[in-house]
């Protein structure tokens, strides 16, 4: 336990360094930073318009009213922003570039956790601005829906959200290990990203088979639907059950996939 805590602190120190020079780099290229932030905002705005247009035609979708849907939308994009900031760019570079070029060797040589080195090396600071914008939207929606939200449900939401974020990371990385087996496979991650566009709609509007998929093999429901449901008191027991089942399974799959992938990587690279 002590060693784990020490290792965590060490990795945190290393991450502070990575953040610090990424920020310096971003400040050196301020214009690019703002243009890229703009592009993220545009992308999110187009989806927001879809939600607004949907609710022009109906007052409820899958049991979710407009304000609840906007809350769900904002939480999806907060997760999107956080994942971009923390590890998404690392995953994408890992699959697209670093395995193929063999630069991943350099990560393996370092006395740090190999997943940390592979995925957390390039924080995407451009996502900060649009994440803040959707965070403000989320807070606004929470205040509007405050009559539905108790302190207990809010605390429950915070815990579940963190666990769901971990599930999402574990699953993404498990899928990313396909790069150890197939030379060019970054489209797998883009596929999952595209699929996660549907996380902004209540999962229960889809056919049963797709709902099951979104809660298991492609768990995009955990991006926002599950924690939002817990926050708003919708099917809370079911949601917590799913978290408690999927979290350990995804942890085990991640560990095995990474370990086997590393073995496979070493057997293929020269």
């Amino acid at each position, binding site marked *: 336990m002590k060693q784990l805590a020490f290792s965590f602190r060490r990795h945190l*120190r290393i991450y502070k360094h990575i953040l610090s*020079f990424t920020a310096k780099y971003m400040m050196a290229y301020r214009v690019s930073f703002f243009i890229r932030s703009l592009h993220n905002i545009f992308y999110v705005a187009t989806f927001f318009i879809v939600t607004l247009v949907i609710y022009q035609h109906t007052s409820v979708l899958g049991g979710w009213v407009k304000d609840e849907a906007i809350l769900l939308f904002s939480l999806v994009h907060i997760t999107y922003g956080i994942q971009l900031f923390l590890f998404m760019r690392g995953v994408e570079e890992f699959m697209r570039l670093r395995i193929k070029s063999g630069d991943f060797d350099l990560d393996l040589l*370092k006395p740090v956790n190999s997943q940390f080195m592979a995925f957390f090396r390039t924080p995407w600071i451009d996502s900060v601005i649009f994440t803040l914008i959707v965070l403000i939207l989320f807070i606004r929606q929470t205040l509007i829906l405050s009559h539905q939200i108790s302190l207990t449900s809010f605390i429950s939401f915070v815990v579940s959200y963190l666990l769901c974020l971990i599930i999402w990371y574990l699953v993404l990385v498990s899928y990313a290990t396909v790069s150890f087996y197939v030379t060019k496979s970054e489209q797998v991650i883009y596929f999952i990203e595209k699929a996660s566009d549907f996380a902004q709609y209540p999962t229960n509007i889809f056919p049963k088979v797709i709902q099951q998929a979104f809660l298991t093999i492609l768990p995009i429901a955990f991006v926002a639907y599950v924690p939002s449901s817990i926050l708003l008191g919708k099917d809370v027991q079911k949601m917590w059950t799913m978290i408690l089942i999927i979290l350990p399974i995804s942890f085990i799959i991640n560990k095995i996939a990474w370990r086997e992938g590393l073995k496979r990587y070493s057997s293929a*690279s020269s």
Partner: protein
Amino acid sequence: MSCATMELIMSQPVIQVKNLKRYFKVYKKQPGLWGSVKSLFKRKYETVKAVDDISFEIKQGEMVGFIGQNGAGKTTTLKVLSGLLYPTEGEVGVLDFDPWDRKPEFQKQFALVMGQKNQLWWDLPAMETFLLNKAIYEIPDEQFAKTLDKLVDLLKVKDIINIQVRKLSLGQRMKCELIAALLHNPKVLFLDEPTIGLDVVMQKNLRDFIKSYNQEFKATIVLTSHYMDDVKELCERAIIIDKGKLIFDGKLKKIIDKYARNKILSLVFSEEVSEKELKKFGQIKDFNQGESRYTATLLVSRKKAAQMASELLKQLPIEDLNIEEPPIEAIIREVFQSGNA
């Protein structure tokens, strides 16, 4: 600790390789669009024996050169020693660790520098990478400052460590790469083609640096290179690998003396000369007496190269004369054709 104990420790091998084998499965595709379509249905695989049963030991402070052609197995061997590749068969020990375990305690004691890959962050000054490595290797502040000063001084890069890496020349980048790799004072240093693509002056600079590093820190250095000069200047001992097999392990002097029997004389004449005349001086490899250019290439015994050159200049109308070592590939070919030393 007594001198005898120290000597005993220093004579213990830091690198031990026993019957190492490393095989890869590669798939062969026929060329062209039709070949690509056929490969959808049936693929042919073959096993490449990158390293095929090699054994050696290296003691602390030794500088050993790995020599071999492209694809001989040099880089593969280094990668196994660094823990990047798992052996197909055999045993490997570096500093009493199994490299494949990739224990942090092991990783903090060695460094691998690959000439064709870089760990410096492209858009940032090299200093940022140094600071990151300080955190990764947990180097204390004082030690970091001292080592950095020393390395920066030795490599004369004080003016460039705060410039973006992408704006540096290849030679400058290579120097910074070395610093990044050596900040944690590794006991074992693996250098894979460290001087590739550098000009002759920079190559010399780097060699001098590596020599001083070895002398100062008593680091064990294993170096692979295509450039014979790298190995000649730095290493007393050489290991020759060809097609995955170890065909020579011993003093470098022994290879040069025993196998590099000849030197190559490239000649340009101001007028036509006869082949018969030239034969007296050595074995003719190439003879070209064309319309406007008269050239020839001779193989001459190493010991007599200088003397022959002098005789040629006296007796024949020579416009230009160049004395070269035979390429490393030629020496290795000779070594391989002669069998194990």
